[in-house]
């Protein structure tokens, strides 16, 4: 608990809370027409009282677009990480628990997938499937799976060797029962920390994919798309790049800080270091 209350923990938690509230609330609070209304009379206006974050090349208010962009980011990142958990958790548990030939061949496949840079894998999958919002989730989710299943396998190996698992087995518990009651609940803490960190990476990946035009498509408000659109106006309207850029940075920074703190809390080896 002390670690959560450290400056790092407080800043991280606040940033993540603000992001989450905005991401969940924005679609209800911001009328859609505000983000799509094109008004060429006020195009590329710098930030001012009338235009808090300035306007983009079509005269749309960046403040509304950046708020709704949080929603897009959160939905994609959370679903992508959830997808990689749904595939990676059973894969890692089976591999780590049963070992032998199953483990060997599964991990060979995982190692092969790890040779592909995550972003390359996600971009390729998205390009092959056709870039749109659901496929962006699918692409990032699949690209993350090898990492998560590696971690799940490692944790499973550690927990499966503990005496209480042997005790359960000697009492005649089935493999399924041991996995369900003893392995999965005890590997969840590190897996959840990894998932938190993965959400930060997923937000970056979504931004990169959309920036390259192979993620979410216009007119969906997305931070990566906003940065992409700003490229042609960098000389005259730097804020069109800086506003969404800072939004991505603040969110990912918050998640990373929270991830660091959670890792310190949950990892007992850190304590002996002090």
């Amino acid at each position, binding site marked *: 608990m002390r670690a959560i209350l450290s400056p790092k923990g407080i800043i991280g938690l606040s940033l993540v809370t603000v992001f989450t509230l905005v991401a969940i609330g924005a679609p209800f609070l911001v009328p859609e027409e505000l983000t799509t209304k094109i008004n060429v009379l006020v195009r590329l206006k710098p930030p001012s009282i009338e235009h808090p974050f300035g306007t983009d090349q079509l005269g749309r208010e960046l403040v509304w677009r950046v708020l709704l962009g949080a929603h897009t980011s959160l939905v994609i990142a959370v679903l992508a990480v959830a997808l990689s958990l749904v595939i990676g958790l059973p894969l890692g548990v089976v591999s780590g628990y049963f070992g032998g030939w199953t483990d060997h061949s599964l991990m*060979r*496949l995982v*190692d*092969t*997938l*790890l*040779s*592909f*840079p*995550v*972003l*390359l*894998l996600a*971009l*390729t*999958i998205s*390009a*092959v*499937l*056709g870039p749109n919002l659901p496929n962006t989730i699918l692409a990032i989710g699949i690209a993350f799976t090898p990492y998560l299943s590696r971690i799940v396998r490692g944790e499973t190996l550690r927990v499966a060797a503990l005496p209480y698992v042997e005790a359960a087995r000697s009492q005649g518990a089935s493999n399924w029962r041991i996995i369900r009651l003893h392995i999965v609940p005890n590997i969840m803490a590190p897996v959840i920390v990894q998932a938190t960190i993965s959400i*930060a990476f997923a937000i*970056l990946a979504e*931004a*990169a994919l959309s*920036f*390259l*035009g*192979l993620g979410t498509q216009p007119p969906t408000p997305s931070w990566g798309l906003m*940065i992409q659109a*700003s*490229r042609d106006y*960098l*000389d005259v309207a*730097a804020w069109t*790049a800086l506003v969404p*850029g800072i939004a*991505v*940075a603040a969110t*990912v*920074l918050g998640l*990373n*800080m929270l991830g*660091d703190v959670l890792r310190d809390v949950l990892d007992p080896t850190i304590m002996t*270091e002090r």
Partner: protein
Amino acid sequence: MSYLARRAALFALTLLLISVVTFAITHVLPGDVAMMIMGTQSNPTALAGLRESLGLNDPLIVQYGRWIGGMLSGDWGVSLRYKEPIAALIGQKVTASAMIVVLSLLIALATAIPLGVVSAVYRDRWQDTAGSGIALAGISLPDFFWGIVLILLISRGLGWLPSSGYASPTEDFWLAFRHALLPATALGLSLMAHLTRMTRSAMLEVLGQDFIRVCRAKGLGRGAVVFRHALRNAISPVVTVAGLQLGYLFGSIIVIESLFNYTGMGWLTYQALLNRDVPLIQSSVFVIAAVVMLANLVVDVLYTLIDPRVRLE
């Protein structure tokens, strides 16, 4: 030697698996290659013609065999977009990318190691807060955002370096270097951040060990303790991580090279993806994954040279 032989065999096996995965992504995922190339609205006769000419009606295993056979014999096919042999196309681009990747690795190591050492030595003091803060910011900011900030500041603001383009180092080395510097910096920043954190924690671990106390007790100066004894013991995991992070760099070059219009492997792969140039996608994805594999292998082998304990396993 048997260690090297085993690693080489494993490398060959993984290379084969990489080719299978690369092929699978473009052929097994729902999504028809011919339709991907021509678009969903295209004329069925033209689609059938294209399928026939690309050999898409053959069984998958035959198609895979043809592709991998071509790769092995040096015939990598022709790019649909550029109408040029793919092997030659990739050959030119790999050197351009190698230049910024190596440069960014050097930038990252040269900044991360001093920053990490300072953070560890002044643990929990302002130097540590500053160092760790820089590292956290480096991890959290997307590299293309760094790229845009660099373009705005260094290129547009100060006018020191070009913001776009590539120059061949054999023709004009200085110009090539100037073109490579900004993309390499943008690429290296997040790696620098990772390595700073690694150096810090590795240094903290070593500084807490008994032999460091012995060094201090026998009256060695602070510099000698930190650099000659602690850093030497802390550096090998950092170098390993740097090598392993090469994969990450090769993912980022796609974004960075596109942002800076730097025509290397990442740029080429991006063009292939945008233009649905399937033969070029397959070859470039395969080459990038193979380069990452090779880099990891080299790191592993180098590691056994730096740290003889590893070989005993």
